[in-house]
């Protein structure tokens, strides 16, 4: 049985998915790939937007796309160190 993902793991998954899709993905497939409930996803997504990790952009047809900000890329770079730190000190 797979272990329950931590909050930090879910954030990493969401941001990682955006990066894997050439830094541009629509919210619905992002929700599907993330594999969490839509309510949880909207909570995580709002938090990531408020903290400035992701931004929403509109294409010419007015469709919403999600992309990473510089802060989002930095988070992905430092994820392992951050996870190690947070686990070490039980934060």
């Amino acid at each position, binding site marked *: 049985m797979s272990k329950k993902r931590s*909050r*930090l793991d879910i954030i990493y998954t969401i941001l990682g998915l955006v990066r894997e899709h050439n830094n541009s993905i629509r919210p619905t497939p992002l929700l599907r790939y993330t594999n969490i409930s839509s309510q949880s996803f909207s909570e995580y997504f709002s938090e990531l937007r408020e*903290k400035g990790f992701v931004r929403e952009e509109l294409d010419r047809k007015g469709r919403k796309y999600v992309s990473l900000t510089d*802060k989002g890329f*930095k*988070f992905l770079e*430092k994820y*392992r*160190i*951050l996870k*190690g*730190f*947070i*686990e*070490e*000190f*039980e*934060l």
Partner: protein
Amino acid sequence: MPPTRMQGIPQALPGMHRFFQGPPLEMLATELLYFAVVVSICLIIYFRTRELYSVSQHKGLFHFRNVFLYFAAAYSLRLLQLVFQLSSEVLEITPWRGFSIVLPLVSYFSTLAILSLPMALMAARFKQTILRETIALHLTAFVSLLLVFATGSQALLLLIQSIVLLASVLAIFMAPKQAKHKFLSQNRVTYLLLAAFWVVNLLALTKRLLPMELKLALYPLSAIVFVSLFLRVRKRLPSNVKKKKQA
């Protein structure tokens, strides 16, 4: 007759001779050394974890860093209070009335530091925003400041901090543990020691209830807790992890 240590001290400074009799000066040197070690470690931890926090905006990390910022302020103000007490006793001068704010400020930062310890462990599980949690902590600390300010009592400061410590100890051990950590993990014991040493340190303010011999034993122990925590933090910082990988 052999010369005494008091010879040569101008008579124009009444009470000054007591400065040269030993204990107060030794006490001040011990306090200064202890202050320098603890406060510098606290500030180094606070500033060197800034990058990790700015990258993650993690709530637990926010409170963890603040523990050290508040402890740095509390230890600095404690030293200031001790210097005022010593100078008023040794030099027999009445301290400026404005100094009466120092003790309530010690209470304020002390409450913040002790309460931030369990917050660091639990905050990630709370749904409250950082702002709300911070306001709640500051309001609690402000109540302790008002109580100490109104009474000016060092005994009350000690009582309040003991109650805050007790509440924190309960919260630290009730905080949900992560799978890989034991109930009595190294972290929880360290957090407990940080808070406990601080409250015992406050005894030094309350009319010197703490004998010099006990201080000499207590201060190195307390400094060891801070140093060991600093070494663990240092090992986990991005700059050190990168160096290890390169090696």
